């Protein structure tokens, strides 16, 4: 196999309060298996021989532990080498810094995707690209109605028509705010007279790149113009100090901005077809959908429950972990229940995700809820559409709808601050992209303030 994979594990800011330092996003269970498992399994199916898992330094310990004890021990063949690297920094910079470890063309993956898109498809698309295409990105459109649309925040993706033989990425912009006008550069339109602005495309963050992309030199008139002033090697690597999405965007922009260079590199594009499903667990509701998707996909496995009291009904559309005990008249439908849970009598669960070690009292009704590890829910509680943080105790008779129940423990507080620091590693989050541009803008304003040397190269300044 001529590819190598890099899996970037972000902090999962959107998944609060489910994630914690001891349970980073990559290890959050989807259908009782850590998220990372699916990414690794996808690589395995692609036939890759080497995978680098990058995470923040805080999450390194639990993740390497999982790889060593959990993942590797499960695999029968050890054909795929998995390596964990801790790195806190912008994703673009991480990739650049891994240059020594990357020997082949590489596939960049997030840790939080669930798809039935075959890895072979992705690899083949890149192989079939014309030579000047230095990398290919995969985008998807959200096909789920149940997802919270607010959390998706699609960018404006400008590309050549998808119906073309080799669609090409031209530019990415954060969606402009209501009063900001949106500009399209004429130089792009002369180069690519037929361009499409998509408002619905979401980034899968799956990128297949040639290794030579690591030696890519950005055009001089780049967005981070302040950086260019520092010449030399350090200046060059500084240009990578931005989210990977921005790196891709800048390469794409270079493809039309420099008219003279004939051998411009381009970024290819592929949109996940409507027949395939693709979910990124960037929000709680997406996480729930991912669980359901796996449930639908996996052929029915009899619940490996060791002790089920008579009278408890577990639907064939549900998954229950090892060691879970259920009392009489409890029913579980369309749900995923982790290991070592204890459910009381007459509990009803439908469409829920319950993690490990959860204890339910009698007569608890849960509908479309996510229950964290080790939560205790006392008798007669009714929760609809709630998210409960790990170790939380739901008092007797609580009735809640669409709420997030979280304890304000010291641990919880730590969580939040950690998350914020770790933000840097977040894989090209949209919000960050925005920040990135805003920085450019303010820099430009400063330089303009000195006089009218406002160079016209402030290509992407939006005022």
């Amino acid at each position, binding site marked *: 196999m001529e590819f190598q994979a890099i899996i970037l594990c972000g902090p999962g800011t959107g998944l609060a309060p489910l994630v914690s330092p001891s349970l980073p996003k990559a290890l959050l269970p989807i259908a009782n298996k850590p998220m990372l498992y699916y990414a690794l399994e996808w690589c395995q199916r692609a036939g890759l021989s080497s995978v680098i898992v990058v995470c923040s330094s805080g999450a390194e310990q639990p993740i390497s532990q999982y790889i060593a004890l959990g993942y590797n021990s499960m695999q029968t063949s050890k054909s795929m080498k998995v390596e964990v690297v801790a790195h806190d920094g912008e994703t673009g910079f991480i990739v650049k810094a891994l240059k020594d470890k990357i020997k082949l063309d590489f596939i960049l993956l997030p840790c939080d995707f669930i798809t039935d898109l075959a890895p072979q498809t992705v690899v083949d698309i890149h192989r079939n690209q014309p030579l000047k295409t230095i990398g290919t990105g995969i985008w998807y459109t959200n*096909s*789920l*109605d*149940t997802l919270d649309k607010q959390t998706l925040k699609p960018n*404006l993706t*400008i590309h050549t*028509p998808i119906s073309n033989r080799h669609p090409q990425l031209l530019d990415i912009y954060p*969606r*402009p*705010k*209501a*009063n*900001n*006008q*949106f*500009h*399209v*550069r*004429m*130089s792009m*339109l*002369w180069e690519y*007279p*037929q*361009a*499409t*602005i*998509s*408002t*619905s495309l979401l980034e899968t963050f799956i990128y297949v790149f040639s290794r030579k992309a690591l030696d890519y030199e950005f055009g001089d008139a780049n967005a981070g113009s302040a950086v260019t002033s520092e010449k030399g090697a350090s200046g060059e690597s500084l240009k990578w100090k931005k989210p990977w999405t921005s790196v891709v965007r800048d390469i794409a922009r270079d493809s039309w901005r*420099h*008219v*003279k260079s004939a051998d411009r590199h381009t970024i290819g594009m592929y949109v996940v077809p*409507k027949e395939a*499903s693709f979910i990124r667990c960037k929000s709680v509701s997406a996480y729930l959908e991912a669980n359901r998707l796996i449930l639908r996909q996996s052929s029915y496995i009899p619940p490996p429950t060791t002790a089920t009291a008579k009278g408890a009904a577990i639907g064939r559309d549900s998954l229950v972990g090892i060691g879970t005990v259920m009392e009489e008249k409890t029913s579980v439908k369309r749900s995923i229940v982790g290991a070592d849970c204890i459910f009381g009598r007459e509990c009803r669960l439908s469409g829920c995700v319950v993690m490990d070690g959860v204890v339910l009292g009698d007569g608890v009704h849960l509908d479309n809820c996510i229950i964290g590890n080790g939560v205790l829910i006392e008798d007669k509680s009714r929760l609809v559409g709630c998210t409960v943080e790990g170790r939380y105790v739901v008092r007797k008779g609580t009735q809640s709808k669409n709420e997030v129940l979280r304890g304000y423990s010291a641990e919880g507080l730590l969580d939040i601050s950690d998350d914020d620091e770790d933000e840097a590693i977040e894989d090209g989050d949209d919000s960050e992209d925005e920040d990135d541009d805003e920085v450019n803008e303010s820099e430009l304003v400063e330089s303009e*303030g000195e*006089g*009218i*040397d*406002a*160079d*016209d190269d402030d290509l992407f300044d939006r*005022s």
Partner: protein
Amino acid sequence: MGPKKGGQAGGNKAKVGKQEAQQNTVHEETDQDQRLQAIVLSDSYQTRFQPLTLETPRCLLPLCNTPLLEYTFEFLALAGVSEVIVVCCAHADQIQEYIANSRWSNPSSPFTIETVLSPESVSVGDAMRDLDAKGLITSDFLLVSGDIVCNVPFDKVLAEHRRRRAKDKNAIMTMVLREASPLHRTRARAESAIFVLDEQTNQCVHYEDIKTRKHQITLDPEIFNKHTDLSIRNDFIDCHIDICSPDVPALFTENFDYNHIRKDFVHGILTSDLLGKTIFAHIVTDNYAARVRSLQTYDAVSKDVISRWTYPITPDSNLLADQTFQYQRGHIYKEDDIVLARSCRINSCTVIGAGTVVHDGTVITGSVIGRRCKIGKNVLIQSAYIWDEVTIEDDAIIESAIIAKGAIIGASSHVAPGAIVSYNVKIGENIVVDGNKRLTKYPAGEERNINTQAVGEDGDGYVYEDDSEAEEDDDYEEIVNSSGLVYNMASLNGSDTSFSTTSTDQAHRKPRRRRFSTASSNTIASEESDEDSFLREAQASVERAIAENHDLDIAALELSTLRMAKNAQFHEVRAATITALIGRISHLINSNTLKARAAVESVLNRWGPLFRRQVFDQADQIDFLLLIQRDCTRRMQGSSILLHAINCLYDQDILEEEAILKWWHKEPQRTEDADMVKVGELVPRWLEWLTTAEEESESE
């Protein structure tokens, strides 16, 4: 994805049901009214073909020996039009006469034809208002100009338009756009535009015409909420072939400041939320459509017709009854009765009309020769358009030029590429006609220096100088010449604005003259007070717009209403707007709210676009600059306001580099007193930046 699809399907079903119901009713309607009207605008409201159009209307100029109008009629017949209304403006008598004698007036003609006089119209907008007033339009109609060459089968376009109309009464217009490459030779560079379409429905959501040195187009983020995938197209050839509903002329009447069908009307409809009308595009990929709207496109379309891109509309289909063209290998078309000397050479892509005589040793390549021409010995004709009854004497050389009917080119003369020799001009012997010269015999106006040197002593004619040539926009020449694709003739392009300010003013002046002189016996005095009151009122109107944060369109409309009511010049409108805006800026600065730069930007970014409807050509821009400069002399920090204002307006493409430079270097008024000089003290630095920036962008 299941649920969503289900939801959509459900929704669709409901819609389909409704559509069916509607379609039924519509079927009845269309059954009653299957007749399709076509409006042909015979006038182009432009001066690009002058001096040729001084004597003949553009639509009767021959293209491959057939008048342009004939191609348009052929297209309309193909499209299944049953009623044609030709709107005549300039040279109406000639057009009427031509139509009366043509086969289209015969009983066998596929459509009925009628001419309507609209002598006062100076723009498409005026013509439409005239049509609306005359009440001639009864149903959806096809709007074309009299200079198109097109072989698009129209039934599909029409069916699509009617289907859309049936679904939504607000879909008032369908534009037929042909897909091409952005640098295509029939794409008129000066008038090409960017269309932003919804990818699924082809609804047009944004229109922007391309001006040179425009670095970006600006979209309203609102459109992203309504449309998921937008396609931005810079590769359309827009021939202004539109299917319009009767609402279109009515809307022109409602908005009496709309002149241009695209720049004003389409743009206005798309940007107005109030009207709620929609415009769609129909994209043509396989067929041919082009409009002869400049000399550049005249050349390009001629070549396309000769090389049969426009099939079945080719010379050998003999559109006119008396034509006898026959096709020969290598795209050579010859009529009967041609006398060719044994040793002359006719190369490929050539059309020769009946009765023409070509003598020994002459070489003709890629050219069109009219009827009854006499071409002498050893003449070289290359890529030239020679109309009927032209005499070319021995040893002459003609390259890429237009020689109109009846002209005589003397022996050994040389007509360089790009020249135009108009009707009956006689050029003497051994004369070199430069490529940028246009020669005419048309009686010149008074006080014009007649330059007869160009035609030689025994010649007849003079160098034609267009009034608008002074205001000519050189930008396009630059683009056109720099791209090797395009023919040099393009450099003949006249002014690109579809109407000049002066002519609009005059036109409005006559019919709309209104006097408040009932109280005053002195007309002149009333005129003056008129002007004063206009300035005051216009200024107040702009100030009110700023204070109450009006919509830009509303402010612009208010100004233009006022201008028409008071019968004012654009100069005065500009003066009033500038006074109001600079006053606002100055107020912001003096009250220490904002620094000079920020104040200028905040005001001009919001309100600068007002000037778009007030400043049209270079003379306007220079006038505009002088007005700003004059106004700034009265202000605190006037020099920095001036500097930032110029920068800001330059960025907005309201001021062009050419005009700024001319103002700075040439305009005597700029330095007429000390105040004016002082206020401009900061400008040189900016100019320096401008020229360096320009060099950079050119080298890019």
